[in-house]
């Protein structure tokens, strides 16, 4: 026998549909009204033509694209290499900071000082100190390339942040998990590897990816040392023509890079939430 909704049920469904149509209509008209207002606010402004000419000039955008794109490739290279070392060093520091053995006290102390120092220091200062200070020492085996030293500075700063994120993840793992693992006969290292870290990383994936997005943009700061990244390439073009469109081109490329990453983060967070609920961990 097929399901036959009652008259009352049909009424309810119709009312629901009406309500949803109504809210769609309201959302649509309010969006249109906002868009309309913003459009006249911006285009009606007296300097609009000049701003449009300076920031949204298609001709300059096309001219700038190749060199800005080439700069972006540098950003990407720096990002990938820096992120690898940031995760590695961040993990080591986090493990050091969460260790409990009294023998390891000096390691904990150094790790704590490291995170305090590099989270406190402005990235720009670290870049200048590493990028201009170290080559000033004239030690022959240390490379003096702006890109290499800039990446080192980024790793120093970001691994301090990431270490704290991972530490939060490790400390967020319920202590009973450790105890249970030890009770099952796993040693400290095995407990860390098979029980604590997998859960810790799962808890902090969104903030870690957030730091990755942030690093992606900060990778451009190495341009203070002379390297030509996307923003600097845009700056060079802007200085030639006194037109700011190249910056917009660089901005658009950065956004295009970031959107997939942030969507991925959202998706991952949602998936984990539903997974954990399904497992009844809440």
């Amino acid at each position, binding site marked *: 026998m097929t399901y036959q909704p009652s008259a009352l049920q049909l009424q309810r469904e119709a009312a629901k549909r009406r309500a949803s149509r109504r809210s769609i209509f309201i959302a649509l008209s309010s969006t249109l009204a906002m868009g309309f207002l913003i459009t006249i606010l911006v285009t*009606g402004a007296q300097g609009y033509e000049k701003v449009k000419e300076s920031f949204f000039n298609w001709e300059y955008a096309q001219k700038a694209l190749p060199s800005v794109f080439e700069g972006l490739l540098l950003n990407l290279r720096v990002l990938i290499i820096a992120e690898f070392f940031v995760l590695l060093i961040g993990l080591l520091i986090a493990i050091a900071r969460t260790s409990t053995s009294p023998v390891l006290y000096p390691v904990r102390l150094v790790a704590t000082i490291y995170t305090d120092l590099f989270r406190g220091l402005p990235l720009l200062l670290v870049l200048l100190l590493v990028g201009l200070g170290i080559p000033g020492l004239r030690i022959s085996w240390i490379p003096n390339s*702006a890109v290499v030293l800039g990446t080192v500075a980024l790793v120093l700063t970001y691994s301090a942040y990431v270490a704290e994120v991972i530490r939060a993840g490790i400390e967020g793992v319920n202590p009973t998990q450790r105890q249970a693992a030890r009770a099952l006969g796993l040693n400290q290292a095995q407990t860390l590897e098979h029980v604590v870290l997998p859960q810790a990383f799962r808890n902090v994936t969104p903030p870690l990816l957030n730091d990755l997005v942030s690093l992606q943009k900060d990778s451009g700061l190495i341009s203070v040392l002379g390297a030509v990244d996307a923003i600097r390439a845009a700056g060079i073009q802007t200085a030639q023509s006194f037109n700011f469109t190249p910056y917009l081109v660089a901005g658009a490329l950065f956004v295009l890079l970031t959107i997939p990453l942030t969507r991925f983060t959202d998706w991952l967070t949602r998936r984990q939430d539903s997974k954990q609920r399904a497992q009844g961990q809440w």
Partner: protein
Amino acid sequence: MFNTKIKVALVALVAVVAIAIPVINAQQSSGCGQIKEGVLTIGTDDPAYGPWFDNNDPANGKGYEAAVAYAVAEELGYSKDKVEWVKVPFNKVIQPGCKTFDFDINQVSITDERKKAVDFSSGYYDVSQTVITVKGSKIAGAKSIADLKGAKLGAQVGTTSYATITDVIKPDQDPSVFDTNDVAKQALANGQIDGLVVDLPTAFYITAVDLEDGLIVGQFPAKAGGEQFGLVLSKDSELTKDVSAAVDALRANGTLAKIADQWLASTVGAPVLK
């Protein structure tokens, strides 16, 4: 959702704002006039470098550009106490719309492309680009532009010095680009770049004052038409004509040459690169 009164009020608000905005905007005057009545507002960057300025204090009138600025002011009928200096970073000099200064003096080279975005006065200084380095560098003995091909060169962002590297020298390695000449000088002293391209007076200043063991490799041969520094004004500024006429008058009556003699006296005699 909303009750009728609120809805009516919202619609009315949207309508009023929609009508009001164009009216308010239209009331603003067009064209960029003087910033402050009776005062000449002059912009330059902070820090302001020698030999163009002295001690990062444009108001002391010392240094070539400070002296030129006051001479232009006098020519326009402003006494020294009627001149006001504002600090303007490069990106604010080139921003669209009306500027925060009447004119800016900061070694900005005049080009046709830039003229589409801002107004320039007549040129007040003829520039030649110059390569500097430190003793022991591999280009210390360079005699020709070809000798610079293999070098790692640097320049300040936003300068025609950078264009000189990419357009004239065309080196094998990508040039380094710096926010300020301060960072560039450090990179040069560190050996991170082999040479730095700057304008000639800056070259003399840096090699004599700032750099230990600094030396001038040579200047580039003068281009046809020549490169000149000009005062920057808002696009279609009402002052451009007068300011330009003032600079022309100062050039014609020998004042510019006299100021150059006083502040840039030591800048002759850099070898010309073949």
